[in-house]
């Protein structure tokens, strides 16, 4: 029951962030920093694999940000998803790969797209997967 409450809260948060991203190509820090900090604290408290995954996503997204290839808000949203909605995170990464490839092929390598709606779509798609798998 609690897991579904967390999933619902993450979904509402993702939808709000996605709307901001579509409209302004940015997400306010008030929507990204607190969940990211909470996810980081939870990952540190849990330790082990949760911390490894959070760290992995943070490092990959940070270096992508460093090179100018991704936004900071995208990195914080994806790292938060990795901790609180891992199935959604996995589908979000797969969708990011597909959408990124499509944008790259159609509009060139430097073309950009709003990524948070893609993450939200991955999270939505993960819900039937979780129901089917009994998670």
């Amino acid at each position, binding site marked *: 029951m609690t897991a579904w409450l967390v999933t619902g809260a993450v979904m509402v948060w993702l939808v709000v962030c996605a709307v901001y991203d579509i409209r302004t190509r940015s997400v306010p820090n008030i929507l990204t920093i607190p969940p990211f900090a909470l996810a980081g604290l*939870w990952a540190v408290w849990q330790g082990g694999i949760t911390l490894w995954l959070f760290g992995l996503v943070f490092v990959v997204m940070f270096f992508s940000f460093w090179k100018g290839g991704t936004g900071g808000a995208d990195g914080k949203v994806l790292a938060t998803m990795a901790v609180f909605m891992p199935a959604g995170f996995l589908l979000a990464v797969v969708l990011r790969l597909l959408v990124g490839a499509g944008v790259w092929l159609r*509009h060139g390598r430097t073309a950009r797209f709003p*990524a948070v709606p893609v993450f939200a779509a991955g999270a939505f798609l993960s819900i039937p997967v979780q129901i089917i798998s009994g998670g």
Partner: protein
Amino acid sequence: MFEKIKLFLLSREANDMGEYAVVGALILLVALAGFQALGINILGKIMQVASGI
């Protein structure tokens, strides 16, 4: 380095470049597959943790 981390944490930008999205997603998927290949069911274990919140 710390300045860059601070910039990352405070960045509101939410645009992905197609090229970086593909490479970043591939790195994450390969890393996850690597964990699975090493016998660490990373996603399964994290789903257990998530359902235990």
